[in-house]
């Protein structure tokens, strides 16, 4: 195997880990609450701006930006739940779609108003430079995002499967009325899910900002990949999002390198449709 191809695959894996990272929050909300959050990409955007503000105001890198972004976004998530989601969940599916879509536009245009339309970047030096492993070059900022992606995935998975809180959340997802009869407050659990999902998204945004551009419209670019990753991985399956993210990243990179950049989406979406045709519940979702 040529070293370039190894570089392509390594790049694809890191890209995929990032996809997985910003999809994990979505899969939690989408899979567990049955709400399609169209504002997800804009949550990522907010996380990126938190990192930007932390750097501008405190000169801080990811060590400061990541926890702050997680906290800020968790609050945003919980506020959004109580102010908007709780109400539109009582309405028809269309109300949910339009409601979260409206939220997306509100966040996007608020960012445009406050931060302006300019593209910004964090300094390259914030997270090391580039690691050299033989002929292979790995950007430290991407590696950090990839490692954190795996940690966040593992963490969310543990919370959902190994803690009482996770069991309560799953119970609410399964049957809210039954859960309520068992003494679980569905609203509280749902708010927690929104908080957790949004916090994961904030972490993703703060880390992606280290190697991507920051702009109010960046959510649009990232959101589609997140939706594809979640549905390929399986709704509500956090490990599924990781596997799907890595797969999509590698397939994208290799096909863009071997066939051409404009064909990579065709390859990805053909495989995506095929995979869902064979396994509509996604790779790791329950039927």
């Amino acid at each position, binding site marked *: 195997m040529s070293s370039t191809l190894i*570089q392509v695959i390594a790049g694809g894996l890191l890209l995929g880990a990032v996809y997985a990272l910003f999809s994990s929050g979505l899969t939690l909300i989408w899979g567990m609450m049955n709400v399609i959050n169209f504002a997800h990409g804009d949550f990522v955007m907010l996380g990126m701006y938190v990192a930007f503000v932390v750097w501008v105001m405190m000169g801080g890198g990811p060590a400061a930006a990541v926890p702050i972004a997680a906290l800020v976004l968790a609050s945003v998530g919980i506020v959004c739940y109580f102010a908007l989601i709780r109400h539109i969940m009582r309405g028809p599916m269309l109300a949910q779609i339009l409601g979260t879509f409206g939220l997306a536009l509100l966040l996007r245009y608020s960012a*445009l108003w406050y931060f302006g339309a*300019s593209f910004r970047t964090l300094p390259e030096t914030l997270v090391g430079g580039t690691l050299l492993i033989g002929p292979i070059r790995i950007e430290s900022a991407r590696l950090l995002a990839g490692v954190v992606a795996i940690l966040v995935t593992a963490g969310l998975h543990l919370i959902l499967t190994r803690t009482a809180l996770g069991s309560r959340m799953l119970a609410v997802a399964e049957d809210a009325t039954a859960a309520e009869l068992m003494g679980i407050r569905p609203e509280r659990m749902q708010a927690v899910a929104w908080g957790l999902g949004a916090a994961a998204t904030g972490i993703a945004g703060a880390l992606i900002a280290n190697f991507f*551009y920051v702009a109010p419209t*960046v959510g*649009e*670019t990232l959101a589609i990949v997140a939706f594809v990753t979640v549905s390929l991985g399986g709704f509500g399956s956090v490990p599924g999002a990781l596997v799907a993210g890595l797969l999509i990243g590698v397939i994208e990179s*290799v096909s863009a390198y071997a066939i051409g*950049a*404009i064909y990579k989406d065709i390859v990805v979406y053909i495989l995506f449709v095929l995979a869902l045709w064979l396994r509509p519940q996604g790779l790791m979702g329950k039927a």
Partner: protein
Amino acid sequence: MKWTAWIRLIGTAAFGLGLTSAACAQSSVKVGAIYPFSGVAPSIGAYAKAAIEVAVDIVNSDHPELGDLPLAKGTGLPGLGGAKLEVVFADNQGTPAAGQNQAVRLITEEKVVAINGAYQSGITLTASAAAERYGIPFLTGDSVAANLTERGFKWFFRTTPIATDFARIYLEFLKDMKAKGAKVDSIAIVHENTEYGTSVASVVSSVFKASGLNITQDIPYSANASDVQSQVLQLKDKKPDVLIFVSYTADAILYAKTMKSLDYKPPIVIADNAGFSDPSFVAAVGNIVQGVFNRSSWSVGAPGTTTYLVNEMYKKKSGVDLDDTTARIMQGFMVMVDAVNRAGSTEPAKIQAALRATDLKPNQLIMGFKGVKFDEKGQNILASALVIQLQTGVNYVPVWPKERATAEPILVYKGW
């Protein structure tokens, strides 16, 4: 108060309102401006808006200091009895469909007399088609795709130099650099795949090939891509002598960052304006694309000159200097407004005739064009440009042709 009295009061108020709005309609002329305020290039929209607002200020208030610039002296549009100029901005959202809808909305609901826009060539294509259908003049100051003026449109005008002009400039520039010892045997074009990138790339390819320069690699990609590593690795494999980018802002930033992280430095990099000229691109990653060549028809000029003063006005509004793109946008808008004024009427056909009769001299322009004069296709035949380079820091300097250069071209791409 009795209900009849209420009705009388409301009626009077409504009548009064009607009168004032009618009076307003007479003393102001509405034109439309369609630009990207969202999508992949929202920063351009914000700068375009600032540039157009400066142009409106130049028209509506008295600016005797601005020399021969049309409509700078005096207030309003003298051809229309001193009417004030009013602009209705519309967001093309970065999609051809939205651009077209906005054009229709501006024409049918806002009743604009002419439209300016729309930055992305692919959107100018659809928006101007709507204007053509309604018989409203559409002028673009910045969309360069060749085919825009090849459609046989009667209501479409373009002030900017176009792809064939740039292709020839790049060609002559590279030939000159070759004479100075640079290798230009293999050339790669990396371009975004909508109207702008595709058409500029194909024009550059055909002009280069006709003169015996080899395009050895052609890499189209989607401007809203989230990753460009594979494209950079493809380039790294083939090692072209010259790399040409035709890109918008978001993708240009990704290329700059990825080239650095994969340690790829081609000997000569030429970037075709657009993304690489966006002030927010230069501010964000200008320090890692040192030595990139670009094209421009804009130069700030010495303190006290008209261009310098206009730039000061713009800087006060936007916080940054005018660059080639925003200056071309402002210039296009000014040409359109000058025609509305000379038409002396809000009738579209009269404005169209005035546009056809446009004959502006270099001293009446802010751009370094040889003038503005439209051919039967609506293309400005006096448009021209020069090669600029990003040298030491974040300012482009004119480097070619020699008679207009302020610095020597540096031939090794430095990167970061």
